């Protein structure tokens, strides 16, 4: 997969406050990269710097789809978090204007608008004014406006928030399809389940610094321990004999055991005492959601994240 975008050692300060500390990442053709981080981590600053709205103090941004390496605005689709469309214009006029701004040919734009309106179940709505649309409809229209010009790089900021499950599924499907066709996608979201479901790689920043960068699997292998969830009434004392336990949480009938990182899981299961009462048991990796919360609340230490309670 070819590279689409390379960011190297990006730095940015607002007055004396440093908001980006030498961050570097790549985006490849046909992949979905999650740009994650708690509020105020520097995600928007990163995106705005990519879009040439803000200028970096240091570092480089290189777009590989153009020989100059400079930003080609008509090859990028950007869906900002703040949703908006001109209120008092017709759907079709709005979409054609967005296509024109990107230098996309009129004829092709019309065809694509018709195609997507049908796909998103909006056929026949093209002559309605935006203000008469429901929020969900407007959001779909905005999504169409973002991809109308067949961008090579798509930047989506919370694209699925506020949509009903059916529409959400529709848009997710479309994002996957676009990626399959080779579009590079940067997706910023706080919905970790969406990220786990959609993204190939993850770039997580906190307070302007890179915290995690890699494929979902890599990150989970490197940073997320296994946890064992057991339903069933047991004496707490029982766990004293079991080795390889990092931390235990008791909640009525449910016990969550966080297993130390380098423990062999099958051996660990075999080492469970016979008198353990199990109604239900599952072993899984700590979810991205939990890693995220640990980072955001600063309980997380990137390399030697061993916590004893």
């Amino acid at each position, binding site marked *: 997969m070819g590279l689409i975008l390379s960011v190297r050692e990006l730095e940015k300060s607002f007055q004396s406050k440093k908001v980006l500390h030498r961050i570097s990442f790549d985006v490849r053709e046909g992949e979905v990269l999650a740009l994650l981080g708690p509020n105020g981590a520097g995600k928007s600053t990163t995106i705005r710097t990519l879009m040439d709205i803000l200028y970096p103090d240091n570092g480089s941004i290189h777009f590989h789809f153009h020989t100059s390496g400079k930003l080609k605005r008509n090859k990028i689709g*950007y869906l900002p978090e703040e949703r908006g469309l001109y*209120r008092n*214009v017709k759907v079709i006029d709005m979409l054609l204007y967005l296509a024109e701004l990107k230098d996309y040919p009129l004829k092709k734009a019309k065809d694509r608008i018709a195609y997507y309106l049908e796909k998103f179940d909006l056929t026949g709505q093209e002559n309605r004014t935006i203000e008469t649309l429901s929020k969900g409809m407007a959001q779909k229209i905005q999504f169409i406006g973002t991809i109308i010009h067949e961008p090579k790089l798509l930047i989506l900021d919370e694209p699925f928030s506020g949509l009903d499950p059916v529409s959400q599924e529709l848009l997710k499907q479309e994002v996957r399809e676009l990626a399959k066709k080779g579009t590079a996608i940067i997706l910023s979201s706080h919905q970790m389940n969406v990220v786990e479901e959609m993204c190939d790689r993850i770039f997580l920043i906190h307070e302007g610094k890179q915290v995690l960068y890699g494929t979902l699997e890599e990150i989970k292998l490197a940073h997320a321990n296994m946890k064992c969830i057991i339903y069933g009434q047991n004496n707490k004392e029982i766990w004293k004999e079991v080795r390889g336990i990092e931390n235990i949480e008791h909640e009525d009938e449910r016990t969550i055991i966080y297993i130390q990182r380098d423990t062999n899981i099958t051996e660990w299961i075999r080492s469970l005492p016979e008198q353990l009462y199990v109604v239900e048991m599952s072993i899984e990796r700590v979810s991205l959601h939990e890693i995220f919360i640990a980072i955001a609340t600063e309980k997380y230490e990137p390399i030697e994240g061993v916590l004893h309670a």
Partner: protein
Amino acid sequence: MRNTMKVVRWEIKRNLKSKSFLTGLFLTPAMLVLFFLLSSVFNGANEAFMNGTVAPDILEQFVPGVFAGIILLSIVYTGMMTFQSASQERKDKMAEIVLSSVTPGELMQGKIYGYFVLGLIQVFVWITLAIPFIIWKFDMSIFTYLFTFKTIVFVIFALLGYLLFAALFVGLGATIEDVSAAGSFQGMVLMLPFVPLIFFRSVLEDPNSTVVKAVSYIPFTSPSVMIFRLTILEEWVWMEVALSIIILCVSIWICTKLAGRVFKIGIQKYGKNATPQEIWKWMWLS
């Protein structure tokens, strides 16, 4: 420039399709004609004027001035629409999307030129509607008085006035998200085009007084004061006219530059209207 033209075309198209613009376009002259007719019914004092027996030399003097006055009025009005338009961009939360395609400078220029064309369309419609009425009412050949060298000078002043106010207003509009909550500062700036009205009496009394001469050079008053003053003056001092135009051009350049900086930062803010202190700060950030 290509991107600027896209914004220009969009602003024109969008307004020509909007009901409020079209209403203003046709209703305003209709209202003026109506008021004029009503006042002529109730007021017989200016009978000579009503009967079209005005001396030709007075017409020669006033027609270009009145013409320029209409342009200026229309242009101040459309200049204010750039304010509305920039603020709407924020209110509709479109700024970030549009700025992913064009630069803030292109967007701003597009708005200024777009509304410029709309202003001209407005003037054209008003004049076309007014001329048959005037010819019918006064039975005079207005065109002989209209197409003179004086008219050109007046039109130059009117157009320069537009560029100055449009730049000012478009920058100001970008500092505001909610027009109804606009601060007194923005309100005061919006009143600037009407400041010259204060001096109209002085111009009538003595078009060559020191005060009048001074305000002929101050950029925010010079377009309308000059148009009014030159209409009254029989002899023009060309040096004064040229100087006033030069000062105006330089002011437009400076104002556009500063407005561009304010526009660039303001248009991307969310949530609140900017304070004068903030605007002042943005003006000097390059």
